[in-house]
């Protein structure tokens, strides 16, 4: 038997009907890919979620869904829970359960979440800068690598916080923030985020502001001056929408700071004792905050995902069987259409074995191509799964 000849004839036959061949390859590849992609995506998601959860030992936040709290703190998903009061955070700090890192994840800028935190967050996540320097004052921000690339931003540029919704004209402050540094990519949600000092988010929240000196409130001429750098709070005083070297001293906070909002606080105990004490502390019924072990929350989420995956896989398998049945029918019909051609081969002197090999080779080429395509797509899915997950969550 001339395998080369058989391969040649099969290849010629497949090439002669490229649309049919590609459709077959595509449909079989998709049939094989979907369950595999689902499995890859879920297992990669679990790994990625667990990795980040592992580096976030404990989370303290308001009562509510522990998964919402975890996803908001780890993946900066929109804040679904009520805020955690700064007073509760200070209380947590005073307990000395280890390092405590505040997170305020409510606002967005340039389509990315704004994370109000402290410098310790960068240490916790092992984040480094590829350009610029760390934040030094109110209104400063460092941004993730993906955001910088997407919006072509560099240190020295500015980014403006967005209103929470289009009707929020008088609410959240559109603060122009100075980009001081770009973070090195770390393939997590940090790549697509804007990091600011916690106090900067309170300016956006409207709890702190800077304005012209109110030494002469009757001086209306001053208030009428138009400046692109300022926005009017009322008819006589102009508020600054950007923190600058000259106006920074005018920024001040109003009200009781202990009532200021946060989303959550990451707690990094130094030892088991601190961890146990922290967990025990929040068992007190009088305490209205909850403590969450992100790894457990993620495991719960993963088990839900796995249940969904099992269901989806069953559906995919049934669909796959149907698709493979259809593919088989397409092959059989195709061989039926080519009966004359195959009979010619037979008449000339091709044995049944050669005819069978010819048919088998065609099926094999299609199936192997489909499998290769599905494997490549699977590998691609694996490589972009963390990014996809991040995008899906946001």
């Amino acid at each position: 038997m001339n395998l080369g000849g058989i391969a040649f004839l099969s290849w010629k036959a497949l090439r002669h009907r490229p649309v049919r061949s590609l459709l077959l390859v595509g449909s079989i590849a998709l049939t094989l890919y979907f369950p595999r992609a689902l499995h890859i995506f879920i297992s990669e998601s679990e790994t990625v979620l667990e990795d980040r959860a592992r580096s976030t030992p404990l989370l303290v936040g308001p009562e509510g869904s522990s998964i919402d709290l975890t996803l908001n703190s780890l993946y900066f998903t929109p804040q679904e829970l009520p805020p955690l009061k700064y007073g509760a955070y200070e209380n947590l700090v005073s307990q000395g359960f280890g390092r405590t890192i505040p997170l305020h994840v409510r606002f967005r800028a340039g389509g990315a979440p704004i994370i109000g935190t402290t410098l310790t967050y960068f240490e916790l996540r092992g984040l480094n800068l590829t350009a610029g320097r760390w934040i030094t004052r109110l209104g400063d921000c460092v941004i993730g690598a993906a955001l910088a690339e997407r919006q072509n931003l560099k240190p020295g540029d500015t980014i403006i916080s967005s209103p929470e919704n289009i009707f929020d004209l008088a609410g959240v402050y559109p603060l122009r923030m100075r980009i001081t540094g770009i973070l090195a990519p770390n393939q997590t949600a940090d790549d697509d985020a804007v990091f600011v000092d916690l106090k900067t988010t309170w300016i956006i929240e409207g709890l702190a502001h800077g304005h012209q000196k109110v030494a002469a409130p009757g001086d209306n001429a001053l208030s009428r001056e138009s400046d692109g750098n300022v926005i009017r709070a009322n008819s006589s005083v102009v508020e600054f929408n950007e923190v600058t070297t000259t106006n920074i001293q005018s920024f001040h906070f109003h009200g009781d700071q202990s009532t200021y909002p946060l989303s959550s606080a990451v707690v990094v105990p130094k030892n088991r004792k601190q961890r146990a004490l922290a967990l025990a502390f929040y068992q007190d019924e009088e305490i209205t905050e909850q403590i969450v072990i992100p790894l457990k929350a993620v495991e719960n989420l993963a088990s839900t995902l796995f249940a969904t995956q099992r269901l989806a896989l069953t559906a995919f398998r049934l669909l796959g069987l149907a698709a493979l049945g259809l593919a088989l029918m397409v092959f059989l019909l195709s061989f039926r259409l080519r009966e004359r051609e195959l009979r010619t081969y037979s008449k000339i002197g091709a044995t049944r074995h050669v005819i069978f090999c010819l048919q088998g080779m065609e099926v094999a080429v299609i199936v192997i191509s489909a499998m290769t395509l599905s494997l490549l797509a699977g590998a691609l899915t694996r490589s972009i799964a963390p990014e996809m997950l991040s995008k899906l969550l946001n």
Partner: protein
Amino acid sequence: MKPLLQVEKVEFSYPRSPYRMRIEEFTCNPGQTVAIVGPSGCGKTTFLNLIAGILQPEQGRIEVDGVELNSLRPTRSAAFRLSRMGLIFQEFELVEHLSVGDNILLPLHLGLRNDRASLESTAKQLAEKMGIERYWSILPASLSHGERQRAAICRALSTSPTLVLADEPTGNLDSSNKHRTVRLMIDSARKNQQALVVATHDVELLDSFDRVIHFEDLNQSREPTCP
């Protein structure tokens, strides 16, 4: 001289058909050309298929070049046909998606163990003789009937078979092409000492053959002759 093709007491019938064939004796020597004539449907194609080993007789013996075909297993029989016989079909039976060259070299692709280079060289010489060498790389669909038939003949002869069986090889050709084609087959048979058996109903060509046999004389069955 021992005949290259010997058919003895062969009987054949199709299932669920009243048609019967009984050939008492038929022989063809190397280099001899035989035309079998008869009206359409009288069984000429069936007879050629029996000789080629495509159909199996119920009784009798068919021997080609000393090999009793009906005693071979189907696989061996097909391999024998591939290597020792050249078949020319009424409908050319060219493969649409193969170029003319690949159609001519089809026996090679299907497992013929000849030297590829020499077979290719023979095939190209034949194509040149038949005036189709310029179509070597194109698909048969763009060829005329005559050109396609010549390509089919080229395929049958390129393997240098000992027996050439042609079923109405000129059925679709104009007069000048008919004569040219038949002359080519006969020349090849004589030159290469091939036995040539041509089934035809075209009386114009009969003068060219060494022997002309009326199929009705050959088939001694008293049953209806149309399959």
